[in-house]
């Protein structure tokens, strides 16, 4: 039996913080799955080092109704190129262009359907955990991502019937790339490739076992944790569409979490985990709406904006099969994550904060996902006094539902060594 080997499943801010903070205007989901992917450790370990490698298999995006859509159609099915020109000062070139076309929005005129492929090239994440005592540890995590947006296309829905249609086509939609670049402070409507580190996470965690002398319930493990997320990650690129931040978009975050795990018999363990994260508001130049009908990808105006972030809530339910065959273990985890509604304040009176807040990219978003993993603990064959105990895990994860969010379908491996 592996009674001593408490395969503690830790709920702290993610070891595999690979996707932490992949949220932003396009609501890409956080992919960190701490409870599922964080390696267990053995009693007596004073240091654990981990590395994760992951590759993207696909991508799944959900709109407001929970339907699967293209990554660029998460917030609206199409983008409004007429509304894009509204809300600017009367004598500005943008308004002059708008007045020239004098076209009203009939639902298709000036509407463009964008589509693209979002691809996760790879994720690397490093983690280190130092144990002060058997129950108290300090952890550091740093991820690195490589993501690209390919095959971007903009399909013009404008008909070719009325003078308004022709005006809109000739003046706007036929040259949407040029207009976005010229009038939109360099907004690039094409694809991109971005890579860089994510936010650095510093975490302290306490976990304690409470043995149970009952026929079936053998152990209760309680844990709590807190972390500080530092804004080292790549920020959202405001000049590219759906160019997500690799962290909290330059904001500092703090997290509190708690876990309860029950060990049932010799092989089964189940429990839940709760995580709440508060991100401190931050100010930076962002794209804003200048007119209520504007759509999220065609925002021409940039302004210094203070963003108040919504609370992040994450709930996990999981079941483990521990050491079911000579050191092999398995796990299935259901995760629900919700990011509350954000709000912004414009640091000037030139544009309306009310209108700027009327944006779908500020609404709350959710993700439901499933993670499954299997792993092998070399400690099963090693002496308890072995100086190094390695573990290796492979996993796969997939979203099953959500709203206003995008998430990768991916697979990866985790290697950890304990000292």
């Amino acid at each position, binding site marked *: 039996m592996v009674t001593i080997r408490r395969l503690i499943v830790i709920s702290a801010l993610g070891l595999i913080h690979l996707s932490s903070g992949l949220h932003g205007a396009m609501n890409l989901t956080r992919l960190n799955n701490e409870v599922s992917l964080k390696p267990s450790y053995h009693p007596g370990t004073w240091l654990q080092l981990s590395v994760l490698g992951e590759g993207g298999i696909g991508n799944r995006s959900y709109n407001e109704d929970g339907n699967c859509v293209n990554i660029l159609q998460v917030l609206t099915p199409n983008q409004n190129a007429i509304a894009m020109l509204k809300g600017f000062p*009367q004598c500005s070139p943008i*308004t002059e262009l708008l007045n020239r076309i004098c076209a009203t929005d009939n*639902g298709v005129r000036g509407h463009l359907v964008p589509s693209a492929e979002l691809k996760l090239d790879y994720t690397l994440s490093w983690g280190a955990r130092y144990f002060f005592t058997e129950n108290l540890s300090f952890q550091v995590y740093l991820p690195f991502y490589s993501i690209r947006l390919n095959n971007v296309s903009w399909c013009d829905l404008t008909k070719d019937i009325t*003078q308004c249609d022709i005006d809109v086509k000739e003046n706007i939609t036929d040259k949407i790339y040029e207009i976005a670049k010229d009038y939109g402070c360099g907004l690039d409507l094409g694809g991109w490739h971005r890579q860089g580190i994510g936010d650095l996470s510093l975490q302290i965690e306490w976990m304690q076992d409470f043995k149970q002398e009952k026929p079936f319930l053998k152990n209760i493990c309680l844990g709590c944790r807190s972390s500080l997320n530092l804004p080292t990650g790549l920020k959202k690129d405001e000049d590219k569409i759906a160019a997500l931040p690799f962290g909290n978009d330059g904001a500092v975050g703090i997290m509190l979490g708690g876990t309860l795990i029950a060990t049932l018999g010799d092989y089964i363990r189940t429990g839940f985990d709760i995580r709440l994260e508060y991100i401190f508001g931050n100010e930076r130049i962002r794209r804003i709406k200048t007119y209520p009908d504007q759509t999220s990808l065609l925002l021409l105006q940039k302004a210094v904006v203070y963003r108040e972030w919504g609370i992040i809530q994450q709930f996990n339910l999981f079941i483990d099969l521990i050491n079911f065959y000579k050191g092999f273990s398995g796990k299935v985890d259901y995760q629900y994550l919700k990011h509350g509604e954000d709000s912004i304040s414009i640091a000037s009176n030139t544009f309306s904060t009310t209108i700027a807040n009327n944006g779908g990219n500020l609404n709350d978003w959710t993700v439901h996902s499933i993670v499954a993993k299997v792993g092998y603990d070399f400690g099963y064959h090693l002496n308890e006094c072995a100086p190094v105990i390695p573990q290796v895990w492979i996993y796969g994860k997939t979203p099953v539902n959500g709203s206003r969010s995008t998430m990768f379908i991916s697979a990866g491996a985790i290697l950890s060594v304990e000292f």
Partner: protein
Amino acid sequence: MKTALNRSNALKLMGCFLVFSATTYGSILIEKFPNSLKDSGKTTPFFLSSKIKQTAEGVFFGAHPSVNETDLAQEHSLSRIPFENHCFPIAPKTVALNGEMDKPNPLYDTGISHLDLLSTEKDSTFMEQMQGRRLKTSIVAVTTKDPSKICLLENELGNSVRVTESINDAHGNPTKEIIKITGASGDKSFVVAAVTNDQGEFGKNGSGLAVVNTFKHVTGTGEVKEFFFGQLDGQFGESEKPRSFPLDIATSAAKIQGDLAAMGSVVDMCWDPTLNRLYVALHVTAGAQEGDGARALIIAGFATLDGKITLLPIAPDDLFTGNNQIVGARGANESVSLHSVQTMWTTMKMPYLVVVGGNGKPEETKNCVYALPLTNHREKTGDVSNSIIHGTLAAKNANPIEFYSESKPATPSFLLNRVIHSPALIADDAYTSEINQSNAPILVGGGPLKAGDIQQIFIKGDAIHALVIHSKDTDAPGLYHSQALFDAQGKVSAWTNWKRTAHLDNNVKAVALDRNAESMITFSGVDEDHIDTIESTLWYSGQKEGRIAQLNNEVQKLLPKEVGGVQGLFEFSPETTPGIGDMTILVVTGLKTVLVVPTDHKDAAIARDLKQNPLRIANLKCDVLDKIGAVSTVDIVPDLIHGTGSLLFVGGTKGVAVLTDEQNKGWNIEESLSENENTQHMTFKIIGNYRSISKVIGDGHYLYILTKESLDRIDIRDSSFTPITIVRACDFAKPSCFFSDVLVSRECILLATNNGLFKKEIASDWEQIVIPGNTQTVYSLSAASVTGRAQDLISDVGGMLYTLSGLQSSNRSSFSRLAVSLTDSGVKIDPLPDKMLNAIPQPFILFDTFKKYCVTDGASYFHASERNLLTHPILKTGVARLFKELPFDFSNASSMTTTLYNNSLNSWIIAGDFGIKGNE
């Protein structure tokens, strides 16, 4: 390029008439009276009086005087239609009578001789009418059963009634008959009744005006008595035996020099709550002596609140020197006959007295309508500074003074009204009935209404509608319209010529206009004494069968929503289109399509034939139109080269074309649209190398072609139709300038641009026209001219220009009015003094949404917003902040092309990608 109209593709003009079964009746029967009658097509089993009254709350009417205790009318002897399709009785069998419960109702099952309304608040202004503001209204009536008593219904339900004792004449004897009543609502509310003497004579000794109190009575000691509804003493105010104020041939306000020879028993009265003046219109004949004269209009004022009347002359004796001064005359036995009187407050906030009648015998004057300016000496406090001349005829050359509310710190002052203080004192101060330029400001319709005698007039906004039921021409009964045109001071400078806005069935004897829903309620019967059918027009929304529905059905087949629907809708009539002949046509355009619908003809027989026979539509679709793309603009100009026929020009997204035959001869529309004429030889020919045409408009010898980038002109006397560029957008100072609309009148060009409005006369440079408060793009221009033709905007008597400006980026629009006049130094265009706050000129209407268009006939204002993402198109009416949305379902529509009034279809019709909708 020339392409023959192709027969096989239904391109022939004549051969492709699309024929429908014509149903010319689009109105619906008012229900509620016994439903069993509905199948008979009648509303009531008894006859109704033609004396109807309407407010913003609805239409009130009574049973005919002959319907007395016949057990037919019962509680319907007095009824109300609240501008819905139902009629509500308001004369229940038992009521609270003079404060006592469950008493027999004197109005139950009786004929109604006279009826009027009494607003316990001040009468609604035009703004309030347009807002549909509900007023608290009481009804006053005189029954056939008791013709000397006045009944008051204290509320719309009619369950509380008060009735007077018999009204006394000027001698204190009970009158034999009340011949007219009117509600006078002002600081206090009265009912004024014109009464005969005890012998039943009016105009003779003893007849007069009685005043009936309708408020809590306060005695001289300050004691407040219970509600008192009874006659006051019109002569001294307080008397034990109340009397009427004498009104007869010896009344000094009516006679000039000697007593009148006669005063007819036809009286009309009108109370103006703002001026606090009662106007009494009479039929009078001057005495037989030289120098004798007569005034057919007198003013009654209430000197105190106790009912004491003061009668004042409408103008002094010295003003009347001849027999053409409308409200009076001097000369032995001269007659003056006024049949109707109403006051009109224009949107420029000036009062006018609108009278039907004039100098002459009653039968000679029933088709004349005049609008006479009035003085106003009412102070801000409500006091009248000079009661002798307050409300009298104003001097014709006097200019108005703007009158503002008190300005307080942090409170802006509001424009209350424009007043003229100078009365007309001598003949030179007064207008006459002579039809000439100097009298244009008072000649409603430009002169007498030739169609026939006027039965009713309706004042709405700046327009007057006249109802003709007995036409001299058998086909001319209908509703006629004339609109006031203003000068830069806000005075009326002229009236548009009479234009028929509704053809009415010969059986229609009375009409009410729904001021909120722009609908019409008609009262029909075999004659005025046998009215038994009430019908209401409806805004057509696709379910009813009528001429508009038929037109819409075909238009939707040829121009479905998928191809943009109707992209242009134009009416060309003989009055507005030189060279068109005698036929009126409606032109509907869209993608590669031009449809021509003959709707009316000057010849009554042909017109009748057009209306009674199936609606015919000529489809001009052809190969050349395929190249023109979406046709959005059309104009018809006379063929000046050959002297006959017309040239029909069309402009679209990809060019301009003209319809001619192989010899470049114009189209004889009238002949072509007759059933047996073959016009296959007509072809469209492309002109120049154009695209994105905003407008084509003809004026004089030229056709003007407007695109966003340039304004070109074609000399239509030259068959080569070679365009010459007049101005390019890039010639204007601002590089991003573009053109949006153009109007041309007498070769004066008015050009709407994103930099404002510009004017160019012959041999002069472009000059910018100031539009109040506008720094926005001017998107469209429209005009009101005497003839009704936009190209006649510049005329000797003036015209009005409308501009619609907007700012899409902030979703706003504004509608402004400008006065156009022709002076010795050229064309002068000045904004009308539409002011509200602090004397700052501003647009007439400010919209909080971007409007595609705004059109008006002076009475109605239609403005439309197109689809804006999730907001479907909306068509509204009104000028104030609370606009009224018309009951159309535009949820599947995207664009609104235009709204125009088509008099042959009797309707405002609305076009867009949904097809055509209207009110019929």
